């Protein structure tokens, strides 16, 4: 190992350690501040904030998914919001079925929007979503299958680079248009909302909120560990070789498309899980989640944090989304300027993102 390699390896290790420490601290402190500290105290954390942090963490899972495929494999997918939304819709369908007779129309068999559209029976693809285990499988299966079919076609015919980015964008755009249609049976424009309970627990209760938060934290930890395991494995090294020199890797004898496909499907499933955790916390899923701009936003989280490092992706997701929350409440008109400028500045001046900036500063200080 050269010095640089050793330095990078050490940095990665330290970054991962730091991530686990922060995640654990968050998972302990947030429930403590929310439940144990009395409400009047300045240290008390409101349930709203808990949900917000939970939302950031589900975004972080999505960022990990995108970083795996973009940062490590060099595939710039502009369609990951589609996988995120599909996972979200699978969870939303389960939550819809849990409403039962408590909907506006009180129909035990059909969700409100179907009654409104004068549908007489549940479409076949809604069957089974009243069972949590089935929905949980679909959360993985729906995005996974789409990614498999799409990736199988695209990687086998060696569609790469910007072409792949553009067709993934077209894919999510086509899905956006499709889910806007009332005839699709997914609630059209309004999407799925007005959820009541999950696994028998009231969704509005602080306890359920906390459980969802902890589940998301756990999922993020598992996703991160899985990502590290993959990138550290032999498979991960081949994937990185594909990123750096695809033709060369192929000539050596690796089936490049199989590696890509495997990673793409895994990444899509991870995005689906993120969507499934996101929906019960924010209480709505609508076709807007499919919009291409969302996918590109995820890419910018990863770019801001630092592509090619998983903790960088998590950092980017949290920082950018915190900035978004702050801007949209304090200076709503400025937000798009800020986001747009961030895109330009990061790509021009910070190719390694915040993580790269920090280590660059450290190196400089060490040299001085």
């Amino acid at each position, binding site marked *: 190992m050269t010095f640089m390699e050793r330095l990078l390896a050490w940095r990665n290790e330290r970054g991962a350690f730091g991530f686990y420490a922060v995640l654990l601290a968050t998972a302990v402190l947030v429930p403590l501040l929310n439940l144990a500290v009395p409400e009047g105290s300045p240290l008390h954390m409101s349930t709203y904030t808990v949900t917000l942090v939970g939302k950031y963490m589900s975004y972080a899972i999505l960022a990990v998914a995108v970083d795996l495929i973009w940062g490590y494999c060099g595939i*710039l997918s502009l369609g990951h919001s589609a996988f995120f939304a599909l996972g979200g819709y699978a969870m939303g369908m389960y939550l819809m079925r849990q409403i039962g007779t408590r909907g506006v129309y009180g129909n035990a068999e059909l969700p409100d929007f179907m009654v409104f559209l004068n549908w007489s029976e549940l479409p076949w693809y809604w069957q089974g979503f009243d069972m949590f285990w089935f929905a949980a499988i679909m959360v993985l299966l729906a995005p996974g299958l789409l990614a498999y079919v799409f990736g199988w076609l695209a990687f086998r015919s060696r569609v790469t680079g910007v072409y792949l980015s553009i067709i993934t*964008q077209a894919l999510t755009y*086509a899905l956006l248009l499709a889910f806007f249609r009332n005839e699709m049976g997914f609630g059209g424009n309004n999407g799925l909302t007005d959820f009541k309970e999950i696994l028998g627990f009231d969704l509005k209760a602080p306890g359920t909120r906390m459980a969802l938060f902890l589940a998301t934290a756990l999922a993020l930890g598992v996703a991160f560990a899985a990502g590290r395991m993959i990138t550290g494995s032999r498979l991960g090294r081949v994937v990185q070789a594909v990123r750096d020199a695809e033709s060369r890797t192929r000539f050596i004898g690796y089936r490049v498309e199989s590696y890509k496909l495997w990673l793409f499907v895994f990444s899509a499933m991870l995005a689906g899980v993120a969507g499934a955790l996101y929906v019960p916390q924010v209480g709505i899923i609508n076709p807007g989640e499919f919009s291409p701009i969302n996918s590109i936003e995820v890419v910018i989280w990863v770019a801001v944090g630092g592509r090619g490092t998983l903790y960088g992706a998590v950092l980017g997701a949290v920082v950018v989304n915190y900035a978004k929350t702050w801007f949209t409440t304090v200076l709503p008109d400025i937000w798009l300027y800020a986001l747009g400028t961030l895109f330009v500045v990061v*790509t021009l001046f910070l190719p390694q993102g915040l993580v790269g900036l920090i280590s660059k500063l450290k190196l400089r200080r060490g040299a001085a």
Partner: protein
Amino acid sequence: MKGPDVETNMQLRRNQQRRYRGRFALLCRPLLLFMLWLGGAVAWAQAPAGNEFDTAVASLPTASYMDKEALAGQIARSGHPQAQALLQGWLDGKLYADASGHIWLEGEGGYVDPASGSAGKVEADDLEKIGTNNRLRKGLKGMLAQFALASPTASARIRAVREMRRELDESAVAALQARLQQETDAAVTNEIELALALAELQAGEPSQRLAAIASLDGDRSAEVYNSLSQMASGDEADADAQVRAAALAAVRSIESWRSFYQGVETLLFGLSLGSVLVLAAIGLAITFGVMGVINMAHGELIMLGAYTAYVMQLLLPNHIGLALLLSIPVAFIVSGLAGVAIERGIVRHLYGRPLETLLATFGLSLVLQQLVRSVFSPLNRSVQTPGFLSGSLQFNDLLSVTWIRLYIVLFMLIVFAALWLTLNKTSLGLKVRAVSQNRRMATAMGIATSRVDAMTFGLGSGIAGIAGVALSQLTNVGPNLGQAYIIDSFMVVVFGGVGNLWGTLIGGMALGVTNKLLEPWVGAVMAKILVLVFIILFIQRRKQGLFPQKGRAAEGH
């Protein structure tokens, strides 16, 4: 001449009575007979004025709607010089009665007595409008059309005949026949004969009806279609089997023509949509196709062009058309300069890193959108359509196309030709091609490549601005205008084959037509989805698009 006319009219009237249970026909029967006997085919406008006019006018205020229709007929036939003005005023809602039952017509300067035309002093508060209902308005229009038959201009007469064709009662037929005698204009004669044939469909003898059907052959207007299909089947089908069959055959023929013209219309719609796509994509064909730069802000450059058209119209509020024409070069300059700025500021630093270029220009597109929101408000702005672009071209009864659809195709072709000439016949074009094919060799030949890059990017961006001016005539001008076209534009360029202008043209047209052909089957949104899915699958099979680049230049992509 007199005999057969009367006979035909009597038969006609019998049919009419059956159809309308017409009180109108019943009331005017004696009069009509009298007139026909008197002068055969003399138009009533020339009949001597009696005091029919005065009695009819006097009884207007108290009459029921049914009576009013009869009174209107009486006024029309009176031959009074003011009859037309009175009926027109009535139709326009300008006929009033005062408390004493006197009728007043609202004119330019005030209220006038309809019979004498002399002004009177009346208070508007005392007046009550002589009302109309739908049926009465229809009748009034028919009567006024008969007056218009005597109009000196041929086009007005044609309009009158068409108006009368909607409701062919015997008075209308009589008037038409009278006009036919003295008509000199061939087009008007044609129209009148058609109308008479339409009336003849109600004739008593099956042979006459058959002849009428035969003479209507070739006419595909809605009235003919409706009458014939009524005769062919349904409740009011003709009693005679032979006539029914003939009518059915005629209906079938019209229907097949209809579907043919519908196909033509779909094709034209598709071509105009394709032109829009090509216009939106053609600038991208330069920046992405020739230079290989992914410019996600391309849509916003289109948007800048559209807003330029809006601003130009604000600057020249009295010359809408001129402002639009001027905004074509201005938009080219505005968007072109913006493009040069983007290239110098951002893209230049990212050559060879397409994914980073994509992200940076996407960020820029967000900034530009928000800038437009801040400056022009987030609401859509409307760009006015000048007179020479509005209206439609009527090919025949079944096919009419709005001018704007034709102009957009024409405009696209002009822009395409100009761009093609620029790239192939100018020294800038030569340099652009040289740099895109082999940058280092071009440098060695003394071409200032970075200058050429800026110019090329500016050219593509300027074309996007021009496309924006065209789009401002078709859709709402708002901050999201660009977003709506960016994905489509990329699809067109990739589908047609990167780096190939002809590919963009043919690809865009093919996608536009396919989209419109699918629309009647599956709906607009689904058609769009299907086209997107088709392109995604197509790229899997042929990455290089319809017309791949050949040779060394292709390897760079």
